[in-house]
Each structure stands twice: as structure tokens, then as C-alpha cells.
């Protein structure tokens, strides 16, 4: 396992120090991710409290079934990611690569569904700035309330940036799978798998917040 021996970088005393450092670095990075999305969530909170009715009305335009299905897909991908980390820690190369490929598959399904949903919004003319007709008037020509367009601006910004995070994640996973098959990781050293796993779980958790905030507020108000 010469490849494992060389994966201790020169400036660390031992594997333990190297791993602890990586974990701390990754968590610091995730904290900055929390602040990054935090700015978006804050904007959401401000405008939703300002235009609760318009937000509910706009939210009702989303396809809850697709969003719900996507949520399940993403939760599954978190499970397969956790399994990949577990396989890596046991030195199971093939298992790790397999779980990673499954994770990539779930991630790609999620993105595919997302593209389909975006297409739907395009067809309904709900893209802020580019097509405004659906944001100004519904199909019967009744004007939309103020804040309706802001909801969609936030919808695209939030889900879009979430999708960008997934698009960055997938090549990372692919890279791990290839390196894993080449025997770069073993029970002593699988830090990159673990770190990418943390990242992937984080991206999933963001969606767990996005889904109810974007998809379910319409259903809630509609019930009244």
C-alpha cells in the first residue's frame, strides 16, 4: 500500500493530525456555506413576512409531487453516500465505488427532475426578468399581487444555487470513485471520501429546508 503511505502530507506529524485537521477545515467550510445560504433564507424570511399571501399563491404554482419525489431521491442519495463512506472505512473498494455511483445516479435524477420543473415554469412564463407576463397576470388576465414575482426570483435563486452545489458535487464523487477503484483509499486513509460525504449531506440538508419553504406554504394557505 505505498499509495497510502505517501498520502500523509509532509507537514503533518501523523495520520491522526492530518485527519483531524481536514475535518476541522471541512466543518469551517460548511459553516461558511451555512452563512452563504443564510443570506438567501434571510431574504426569503423578509419578503415572505411582507407578502405572505402572494408567496402562498405563488407557491401553489409549484409541482408538490415532483418536489416531494425529489426530496425522497435526495434522502436516498444521502443514504448511499453514507454507505460509500462506510465501505471506504472497511477498505471495500468495489463497494465504495458502487455506492458512489448510486449516489451520482440519485443526484442526476434530482437534477433531471429539476430541469423538467424549470421547463414547466418557463412554459408558464414564470421566469422573473426574462419573461414577466406570467408573473404579472394569470391565465385569466387577473393581476398577480405584489411579491408574486419576488417569490419566483427567490425560488430560482435558492433552487438554482442548490443545484449548482450538486453540479459541483457530482464530479467530486466521480473522482472519488475512480481514485477508490485505483486503491487510493483504505481503512487508514479515506478522509477525502468522508469530507465529500459531509459536503453532500450538507447539500441535502439545504434541500430539506428548501422543500417546505418553497413547495408547501401554498398548500398550507390553500387549506384555509
Amino acid at each position: 500500500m505505498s499509495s497510502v503511505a505517501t498520502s500523509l502530507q509532509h507537514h503533518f506529524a501523523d495520520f491522526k493530525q492530518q485527519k483531524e485537521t481536514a475535518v476541522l477545515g471541512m466543518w469551517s467550510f460548511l459553516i461558511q456555506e451555512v452563512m452563504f445560504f443564510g443570506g438567501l433564507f434571510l431574504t426569503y424570511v423578509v419578503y415572505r413576512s411582507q407578502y405572505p399571501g402572494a408567496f402562498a399563491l405563488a407557491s401553489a404554482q409549484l409541482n408538490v409531487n415532483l418536489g416531494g419525489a425529489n426530496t425522497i431521491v435526495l434522502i436516498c442519495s444521502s443514504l448511499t453516500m453514507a454507505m460509500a463512506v462506510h465501505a471506504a472505512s472497511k477498505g471495500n473498494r468495489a463497494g465504495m465505488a458502487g455506492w458512489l455511483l448510486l449516489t451520482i445516479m440519485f443526484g442526476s435524477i434530482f437534477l433531471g427532475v429539476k430541469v423538467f420543473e424549470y421547463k414547466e415554469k418557463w412554459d408558464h412564463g414564470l421566469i422573473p426578468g426574462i419573461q414577466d407576463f406570467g408573473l404579472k397576470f394569470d391565465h385569466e388576465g387577473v393581476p398577480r399581487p405584489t411579491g408574486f414575482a419576488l417569490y419566483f426570483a427567490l425560488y430560482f435563486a435558492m433552487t438554482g444555487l442548490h443545484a449548482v452545489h450538486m453540479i459541483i458535487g457530482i464530479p467530486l464523487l466521480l473522482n472519488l470513485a475512480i481514485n477508490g477503484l485505483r486503491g487510493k483509499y483504505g481503512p487508514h486513509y479515506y478522509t477525502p471520501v468522508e469530507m465529500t460525504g459531509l459536503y453532500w449531506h450538507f447539500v441535502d440538508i439545504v434541500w430539506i429546508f428548501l422543500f417546505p419553504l418553497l413547495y408547501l406554504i401554498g398548500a398550507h394557505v390553500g387549506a384555509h
Partner: protein
Amino acid sequence: MGKSFPPLFPPQASTVAVEVDSLYALLVAITAFFTILVVGVYIYLGFKYARKSEAERPIQVHPPAWLEIAWSVVPLLICVVLFVWGVTLYFKIYTPPKDAITIHVVGKRWMWKIQHMSGAREINELHVPLGVPVRLLITSEDVIHAFSVPAFRIKRDAIPGTMTTTWFNATKTGEFHLFCAEYCGTNHSGMIGKVVVMEKDAYQRWLSGPNAGQPPAVEGARLFEELNCVSCHRNGPTQRGPALGGLYGKTVELKGGGTAVADDSYIRESIVNPTAKIVNGFEPLMPVYLGQLSEEQVNALLAYVRDTLGKEAASKTVAPPATVTDAPGSSTQGTVAKSDSASKGR
């Protein structure tokens, strides 16, 4: 002095200017004291303990805890004084007195458009009477500006989509600088003008001079008919919105709990974005006028609701001030709440 060296203070031309300058003097004194103290001690110690030989190894000094506490607490106490004075003064500068006259200010790149309640309009000039509190209702048509009159020590941002307020009571006649203080693009430094403080009767004459025009409340009444506001906001079979007679200054109950004071900001918001606050017992049926009306039109409607409709109930108890034709801005605030039921009959 004169031309050779510039003055250190702008003219003191409003009632708050003296107090702002006193606070400023205190702050300058604090700054000078601590700067001289610390720099002086630093230089003194630096030379007193200058190194005499390279082999010098001074004995380590262990700071006493009381000293650290002392120099934390003393600045804190000073800060408390400044904080309290600052907050008090802030509320003084931004809370107009009840008897203030109202003037509408609209910022637009790169000019200040000003309208008096008598109907007089002017651009980049603001004529005001001496010794009368003047309330400015400020907004912007495009980007953020800031209405700044250093001689009065006042400044307030003009924010599109929002109405802000400031006031002053001029104590000196003459002309004073008016600036836009918030960067607004190419000709930002050209968005300047002057405030002209005049004796009361001179101001009256000026109001009816060449700048005179239709009072905004009259224009507002016309718009009120033209936009068909009247059909819903009137007692009767077609009423679908709250009646507006005597509304100004009253506290209204909102749908879903809570109350709001029907001040200028509230009325403005209710015109441009009526769904933001719905009065209890009504449905959100009113069309959104955001982007449909110019700021001047919104101001005209506001003036009508405030000065004409708002006084309907109140006018029975409060006589309009005789000296100044401008409608007394918020003069009705105190009395309307009690006597508003009379307006229901209109």
C-alpha cells in the same frame, strides 16, 4: 478669518443645531483628551525607558487587575453618556412636532422637486418660513438620494418605494446649502440647491407668487374621482373599503390582529401596496397602484386623504391655523381618534 481661513462650523440655523454642536464639542473634547493622553504617555514612556544597553533584560511587569478593569469601565461610562444623549437627540431630530406644516419632497436624478401644500412648487430650492416647524415628507422616484441641509444639521435618505420624515425649525433668515448626500450617479454633485428661510409674511407672499399652483389636496380630490377610489371608499351600498373621512392619525385595527396608526407612511403604503395591511372587516380587493402612479400623484392623494378628508371630522373641533395656508400636517393626530364617528355620514 474671512476668506483667509475657512470657518470650522456651518451656520447654526435651526433649533437643533445648537444642541448638535454642543454634543460635537463634547465629542471633540473626548477625542482630544484621549489622543493627547495616550500619545503623550507613549512618548514619555518611550523616552523614559529608552534602551541603555543591548544586554538589557527588563523585569517583566505584571499588570494589576484593577487597572484593566478601570480602563474598561471608564470608557464604558463615557459611552453610556454619549449613547443616551445621541438617542435623545436622534428622536428630537426625527420626530416632528404636532403643529408642523408639511412639505413634500421628491428626489429624482438629479433634482429635488418640492411641493408646498398651498400648491407652490419649486425645484432645487426650498422656501420656508422663519420660526415655524416644517415637516418634510421625503421619497424618491428612482434611486436612493439623501436630503441634507448642514446648516439645520438634518439629513434623511430619500428611498424609492418608501416615505421618510424629518423636520426643522429655522432660526435664521438667509440662504443655506441643500445637498444630495447619497451617491446617485453621474451628476450627484449637481443635485444641490438652496434653502431660503424667509420671514413669515414674506413666505406667504412667496407662496402666492409665480411658483403658486394647484394645491396637492385639490389635485388629489380630482384623482380620487378619476381613479374611482371614491366608489369603494364611501359609506353606502358600493362601499368595499374603509371610509377615509377623519381617518388620518387614527389607530386602525388590522385583519389578522394588530393595529396601525394611519399616518402618512401608512396611507402611502395603502395606496401603492394595499394588500400589505388590510383593515379588519375588509377584503384585499383594491388594485395595486405600485408603479401605476407617479410619486407626485401619490403625494396628491396622500394630501387629499390627510388634509381634506382627514380634517372633515376634526374641522368641527380644530380651526385651521390662520397664519400659514399650508395644512397643518399632523395637527389632527390628537383629536381625530375621539371624534371620527361623525365622518361615517358622508
